[in-house]
């Protein structure tokens, strides 16, 4: 009966879009650094921690309003408690564990062993509960349960929670933890020296009435401040033997400090590339819209330059690390990942459907471009794909791979050559319009309902009449271009106007259409 109920609930939750959506939302908010709203959540929690510690410090010597005490002990703690429970919830997928156990048992034709499922769930959750960050979270909630003065110190554990919300702090911990063995060895070395020197100095000094080192604790304190080269001078050896011990411990202290410094420096040096890459991945995750360029070559660099010149953002994926370094030198955002591997997109946390305006395939062969195209198509069916074509005989294969636009440079050059030789002036005119170096632009303006309604009214104004050429209207509904349209043409929302004019005139034209529309 219980097992049936358990499986029923698990299947219900697993199939419920609302439940899954809610869980995904909280997971993103708590754990996914690429989630755009996570940083607002993190900032809020950091502010709560700062307020909490401020109240604690203020309370030492001043009266704090009971409202603030209540806020600190209950409201903040309650928020942290909710956060803790949410983290516990999203840590593992309980319904999935139950379903997997159920399906496993059905497959091998035995009754559902709910005990096994419960055990797996418990083990999973226990892993969370016993993790360091989780213990800190739990201690930070403590004042919620107790109002004893001594327990207020647990508020300080909230400071440690900052590690959760600040990536830099987490990185510091992870860098140092990569040198656990060295730090442990150093600790043992320092502890042995402190222990030996404490005993020695005690033996040498304690019997001397002029010495201030009278207890083993005094000796330990002196050893610690000496080995770490602090040397306050409040306890000093007075006997010759004691001074010899002091000299030895000072030399050992230099060794300890040097060792510690070298550990930290080498840890940072080793992790520097990784830190930079993580920062870059974080930055890429925060870009709303960009063009994704797969492969880095002189052509890719030129394409990237053109996009950036037009105010767009670009991200380059290139497997060859030397080429990536070159891309960085050229001033582009580039990551050393294989654009043809699904794993890459998971690792760099790029969401192709929402972030990529288009993907441009500029890898060194048609084979690689087709492979990359199929990978991208697995991630998104809709994102526009443009590829360079290296061998004309592969054109159909590129089309089959779902590439929307194919650029075959050789053919392009052939077509342009024909124009250059046949109509050189006409070609120069169009080329100048396209290159935008002449100050006159050919621009497409997507029209909304109000702009469509006002289009001809504005175009007829004396300001535009002879200097803004309306080349035509592209009717998106029937995919037809209407050249030199008469003013009685009905333009609809979504149609595109192609105009030729100077940049300032085009901007003015768009502004006026918009302003008129607003009225």
């Amino acid at each position, binding site marked *: 009966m219980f097992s049936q109920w358990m499986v029923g609930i698990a299947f219900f939750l697993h199939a419920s879009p609302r439940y899954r959506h809610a869980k995904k939302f909280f997971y993103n908010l708590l754990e996914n650094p690429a989630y755009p709203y996570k940083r607002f959540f993190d900032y809020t929690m950091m502010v709560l921690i700062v307020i909490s510690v401020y109240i604690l410090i203020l309370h030492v010597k001043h009266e704090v309003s009971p409202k603030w005490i209540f806020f600190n002990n209950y409201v903040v703690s309650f928020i942290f408690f909710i956060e803790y429970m949410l983290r516990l919830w999203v840590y593992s997928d309980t319904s999935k564990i139950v379903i997997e156990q159920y399906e496993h048992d059905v497959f091998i034709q035995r009754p559902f062993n709910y005990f096994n499922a419960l055990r797996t769930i418990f083990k999973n959750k226990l892993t969370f509960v016993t993790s360091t960050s989780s213990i800190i979270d739990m201690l930070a909630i403590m004042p919620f349960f107790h109002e004893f003065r001594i327990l207020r110190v647990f508020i300080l554990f909230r400071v440690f929670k900052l590690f959760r919300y600040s990536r830099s702090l987490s990185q510091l911990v992870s860098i140092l933890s990569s040198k656990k063995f060295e730090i442990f060895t150093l600790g043992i070395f320092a502890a042995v020296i402190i222990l030996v020197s404490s005993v020695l100095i005690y033996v040498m000094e304690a019997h001397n009435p002029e010495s201030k080192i009278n207890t083993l604790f005094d000796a330990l304190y002196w050893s610690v401040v000496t080995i770490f080269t602090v040397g306050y001078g409040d306890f000093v050896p007075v006997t010759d033997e004691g001074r010899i011990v002091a000299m030895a411990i000072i030399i050992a202290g230099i060794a300890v400090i040097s060792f510690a410094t070298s550990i930290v420096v080498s840890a940072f040096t080793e992790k520097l590339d990784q830190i930079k890459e993580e920062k870059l991945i974080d930055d890429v995750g925060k870009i709303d819209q960009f*063009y994704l360029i797969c492969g880095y070559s*002189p*052509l890719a660099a*030129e*394409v990237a*330059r*053109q*996009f950036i010149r*037009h105010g*767009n953002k670009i991200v380059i994926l290139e497997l060859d690390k030397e080429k990536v370094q070159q891309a960085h030198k050229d001033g582009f955002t580039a990551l050393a990942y294989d654009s043809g591997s699904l794993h890459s997109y998971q690792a760099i946390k790029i969401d192709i459907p929402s972030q990529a*305006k*288009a993907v*441009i395939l500029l890898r060194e062969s048609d084979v690689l471009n087709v492979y990359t195209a199929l990978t991208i198509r697995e991630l998104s069916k809709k994102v*526009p794909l*443009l590829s*360079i074509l290296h061998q004309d005989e592969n054109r159909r294969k590129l089309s089959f791979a779902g590439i929307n*636009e194919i*650029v075959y*440079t*050789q*053919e*392009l*050059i*052939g*077509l*342009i*050559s*024909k124009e*250059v*030789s*046949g*109509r*050189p*002036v*006409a070609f120069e*005119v*169009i080329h*100048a*319009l*396209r290159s935008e170096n002449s100050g*006159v632009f*050919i*621009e*497409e303006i997507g029209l909304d309902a109000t702009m469509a309604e006002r289009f001809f009214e504005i175009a007829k104004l004396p300001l535009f009449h*002879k*200097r*803004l*050429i309306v*080349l*035509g209207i*592209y009717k998106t509904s029937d995919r037809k*271009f209407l*050249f*030199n349209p008469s003013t009685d043409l009905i333009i609809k929302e979504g149609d*595109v106007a*192609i105009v*030729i*004019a*100077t940049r300032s*005139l085009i901007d003015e034209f768009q502004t006026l259409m918009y302003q008129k529309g607003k009225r």
Partner: protein
Amino acid sequence: MIYKSALVFGFNEYAKQIALQISGEYPSFAVFVMTEAEKTFARLAGFEAELFDLSEDWKSIEERFNINELIVFCALDNDAENVFLTISLRATFENLPIIALAGDHESAEKMKSAGANKVMPILQITAGIISEMLEKPTVTEVLHDIFYEDSKLKIAQITVSKGSFVVGKHLHDIDWGNEYDVLVLAIVDFQLGATFSFTSRGHNHHIDPDDILVVIGYEDKIAAFSKAMEVSV
């Protein structure tokens, strides 16, 4: 100037596409190559090719073509060789129209210095097309149709004849769009220099004989417009 002969130097994939596009446009056409391999490649593509080397004195060209009606395309594989070819052609034929391919902007500048009339930097052209296709897809589609597809919408350059009724008028005096259903994009005003000026710049040019108007319109409208242009005042 209407050329009657065209000559392509080199036969790589670019030269092949140039040859395919222009060979039908000229009564006399030839391919000159530097290696036997290129010669074979050209033959396979359906073109007869002749061997040349960069030290040649170009007599074979003078014997075969009327230099005053010839246009050449320099499309050798190597940019340095292409520059050398351009400079040696220019040294021999002062007025020969030379169109050269260049890998990038840097080579393009060298080609211009060597005397090429028009240089096509492959890298920049390709990058420009890629960014335009994604940024301005409608513009790209329309211009592609006008230039390269069998569309009825065409771009043309019309030279103003001496007795034309437009001579003496200003560019903005005529409502080209309403009267002739064509749009005048630019004018080559020889009184102000040999380069073109955009109509959109707003300068009201005085139209003189031999000025060139660059117009866009449907084939039949352009034909009618050309005819109307010839009508005397």
